[in-house]
C-alpha cells in the first residue's frame, strides 16, 4: 500500500507494508539519522517527531503515518545546530549514536516546557539510553540549550 505524509516539511508518497515500522520505512529511504537500536521501544535512538511530539519510530506502524507530519534531525537543522553546540561545550557528545534521538527530545521539551530544570530534563530524557556519557553532561547540555533558547 502507498501512504502520503509530510517528512521534514516535504510531501512524500512511499510504499509500505501493513506491518512495517516507521523506523524501517525511513531507513529504507536512507533517512539514517534515525537509528535502529533495540527495535523494541526501550532505547530511544529511533525517536522522531510526529506532529511535533516525540515518538519511537520502531513502535509506530508506518501505515499510520498517512497524513501526519514527521520530523527528523535532517529537517530541523538550525535548531539541531544549537543543540550540537551545547553538547560540544558540555562534552556530552561521544560516539553520537544516541544524539539524534536526544536532540529531538530536547527540541520537543523546549516547545513543551522551556523552563525545565535538571530533574525535569532527566525525567523527560528517560527512555534515551546512552552507553558513553553517564548522562550528567547531557543534562548540562540540555540546561545550556534551554537557557540559551529561552
Amino acid at each position, binding site marked *: *500500500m502507498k501512504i502520503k505524509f509530510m517528512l521534514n516539511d516535504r510531501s512524500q508518497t512511499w510504499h509500505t*507494508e*501493513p*506491518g*512495517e*515500522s516507521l523506523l*524501517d520505512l525511513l531507513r529504507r529511504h536512507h533517512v539514517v539519522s534515525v537509528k535502529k537500536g533495540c527495535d*523494541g*521501544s*526501550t532505547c*530511544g535512538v529511533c*525517536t522522531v517527531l*510526529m506532529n511535533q*511530539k*516525540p*515518538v*519511537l519510530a520502531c*513502535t*509506530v*506502524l508506518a*501505515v*499510520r503515518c498517512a497524513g501526519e507530519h514527521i520530523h527528523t534531525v535532517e529537517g530541523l537543522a538550525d535548531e539541531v545546530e544549537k543543540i550540537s553546540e551545547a553538547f560540544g561545550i558540555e562534552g556530552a557528545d561521544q560516539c553520537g549514536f544516541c544524539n539524534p534521538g536526544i536532540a529531538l*527530545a530536547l527540541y*520537543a521539551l523546549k516547545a513543551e516546557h522551556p523552563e525545565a530544570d535538571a530533574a525535569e530534563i532527566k*525525567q*523527560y*530524557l*528517560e*527512555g*534515551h*539510553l546512552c552507553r558513553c556519557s553517564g548522562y550528567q553532561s547531557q543534562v548540562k547540555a540540555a540546561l545550556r540549550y534551554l537557557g540559551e533558547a529561552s
Partner: protein
Amino acid sequence: MIHIEQYHKVDSLEEAYRLLQKYETAVLLGGGAWIRTGSKPLEHVIDLKGLGLDTIIETKDSLSIGAMVSLRAMETHAGIRQLGGGFLSEALSQILGVAFRNTATVGGSIMGKFSFSDLLTPLLMLDVTLQFYDAGPMRLTTFLAQRGRLKDILQAITIEKKACRAMFKKVANTALDFSIVNVAVAIVEGRYRIAVGARPGTAILAESVMAWLDTVESPTEATWKEAGEKVVETIKLGTNQRAHESYRQQLVKTYVARGLKEVSGS
C-alpha cells in the same frame, strides 16, 4: 517487521465492530505500542485511529477519557494531575519514556489486561467505568474479573471525581523496566482501598483487607503493618523471571504499610 496479513482502516465504530465480529482473530489497534508484546502473526488488524476517541472531557463530577488518548496526554492533563494528589499522573510518568507514552493509548493499555500494567493498579483506586460500544458501561473491576477476551470496542473510560488521597509505588530494576510488583493505596471518601499489580498476575483489589480496615476505629502503626501482612495472605503472589514470590511478599507488606501510613496522614 510485524506480520500483518490484512490492515483495516475504518471510517466508523460501526464498521470496526462489524469487522471485529466477522473475523475470529481480529485485533483492534489502539496506539500499537503493545502489539509487539505478542509473537503470533496477525491476520486482521482494525485501526481505531481517526474515529474521534482521542479527547478528554472534564466535568464538575467526572473525567471521560477516550480510549485513543495517549498515556502522555492523560499524564499531563490538568484534571488528572489533581486526582488524589497527582498519584495517577505520577504512575503514568513511570511507564517507559515520553516518546513511548505519546504512542501507547489508554484503551490499549486497559484492554490488554497486562499483568505488568502500571496503569490498572492506580486506576483501581478510583471509581472507573469502561464505556464499550456494544456492552455499554462496565465497572473496571468487573472487566478485570472476566476471563477470556471481550470482543467489543472500548470507547472511553469515565473516572468519578471523589475526595481521595492516594499513593502508587512501582518496584522495578530500572526506570525503563516492567514492574516487579506495584502497589496502590488510597483513602476515598473515608474508605481504604489497596491494589496490587504485577503479582505477576493482573492487578487486583485486596477487598477483604479493605473491609477489615474500615472496621478499625483508631488505626495505629501496628494496623498498617497488620494490613500489609493480611494483603499477602489474601492476594496470590507468584514467582516469575523477575522475582520470587517471597520477595514480592516482602515488597507488598512493606509498601502497603507505608502507603497506608502516608495516605492516612498518621
